[in-house]
């Protein structure tokens, strides 16, 4: 963890157009919750649907994608990462710092808006709000790590990330039950299910699988990012 690098990365993330996407999606979630509240009033089932399909299913991967790739991919694209890599800072430390920045952004934006939206719809009934907040928090951290890794592995990090989030988790996960075991969304949902006692919500992956998987994926992705940065080659833009 290097505070100077973290500071620069925060400024790069919050000072550009990128911030609009990071803010708009959580705002949209809260607005949707308010709209649904107007249409339906307090309703636990609606809250669970909103949380599952929008908060965890749509917003979380997008925030993870924007923040995770955003902390490193633009620097590689512009070639300015060479200035960072030429400093006497260990590459794994750079990787950890970038990860902390991305994870903190996703965690704050996703968790706060998830809690606000769920609270609007259910209050604190049957732990839906706290459960999904917990899920969004840790799911967001895992997404940030995976997409950070993608950002240093490939030039098309965002496109590859989109394919993972949309095609693998969305389409393949919809038809092939086995694929759901390897989906960060599902792990986040099993965390949420552990806390919430809502009868409308049950997760498909056991907690005994989800928690170790999440830890392994997060730690593994950050370590691999560090290793990858040690031998990063900058090739010209096509």
């Amino acid at each position, binding site marked *: 963890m290097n505070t100077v690098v973290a500071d620069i990365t925060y400024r790069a993330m919050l000072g550009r157009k*990128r911030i609009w996407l990071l803010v708009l999606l959580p705002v949209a979630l809260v607005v949707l919750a308010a709209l649904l509240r107007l*249409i339906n009033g307090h309703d636990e089932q609606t809250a669970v649907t909103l949380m599952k399909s*929008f908060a965890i299913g749509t917003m979380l991967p997008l925030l993870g994608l924007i923040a995770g790739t955003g902390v490193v991919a*633009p620097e590689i694209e512009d070639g300015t990462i060479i200035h960072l890599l030429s400093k006497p800072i260990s590459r794994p430390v750079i990787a950890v710092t970038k990860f902390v920045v991305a994870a903190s952004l996703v965690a704050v934006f996703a968790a706060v808006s998830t809690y606000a939206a769920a609270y609007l719809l259910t209050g604190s009934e049957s732990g839906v709000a706290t459960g999904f907040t917990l899920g969004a928090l840790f799911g967001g951290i895992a997404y940030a790590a995976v997409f950070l890794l993608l950002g240093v592995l490939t030039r098309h990090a965002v496109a590859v990330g989109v394919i993972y989030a949309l095609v693998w988790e969305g389409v393949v996960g919809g038809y092939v039950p086995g694929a759901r075991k390897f989906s960060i969304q599902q792990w986040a949902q099993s965390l949420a299910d552990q806390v919430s006692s809502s009868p409308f919500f049950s997760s498909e992956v056991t907690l005994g699988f989800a928690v170790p998987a999440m830890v392994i994926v997060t730690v593994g992705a950050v370590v691999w990012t560090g290793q990858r940065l040690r031998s990063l080659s900058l090739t010209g833009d096509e």
Partner: protein
Amino acid sequence: MTEPTAVIHDIGYRHYDGVRLGRGRATLALGVQSLRGVFGFGRTTRAKIMPLLLMAIMLMPTVVSIGVMALAKQFIMPYPGYAVFMQAVIAVFLAAQSPYLVAPDLRFRVLPLYLSRPLTVTDYVVAKLAALAVALFGLLAVPITIQFVGELLVDLPGPPHTADYLGALGGAVLYAVLLSSVGIALASFTPRRGLGVAVVIAFYMFTAAVSTLFYAVLSSTGRDDVAPWALILNPFFLVDTVQSALFGTAPINDEGYPPGIAACLILLAVIALAVTGVLLRYRKAAS
């Protein structure tokens, strides 16, 4: 005072005396070059992987469907629903390829170079929009055309689904125009390709999620008159509504859609809005 000794040598530079083909041909050239680029032709091998992979995925249901028609003599994949069924893949294609068309030119500030030629801002925008629209039309039309040829060759009992096929082709034109204008409009707001991809895919995932969510909530609470309106927030269902209204194909959603005329107007309004947005954006970028 010495005489000046410098001489100007004629080293044989020559003027272009041929026919000047003008704006139209310049636009066409830019459009064709952009279209090739969308599929990665004329670019590095790495740039070809993504579009050709997505094209291959689009063809998979076709292969399966022809196989089933040949072996089991059953028709399983109706043409008009192909785009809705494969919407995630089409959205990924749109998101991955539309920033390529606009972002590098903005990022490297080469727009003034284009505009120093007979090409105008409008021509540039038209060329880019047309390139993406043709690419998307190809992405949609090639699989269903192959399936139709397969259906004719297998010769199932009963008449071929010609009307459905033609309707789906008409629908493909609508999908291509709507998606390309929205894709270019969103992608042209940032000179960064990665962020452009994220913006376009965020648009699709957001509209798709919101439309499914509101449809589910509204129909579960018995507001069946409003529920179909929520569905057409998703661009794919919007086009499917227009497609079934214009070409008489079977709608994907059995519960019914909002009236076709309203959907047509919404479709036109969205396209007009997106194209105006792009034009305004480029008026600003060019100056």
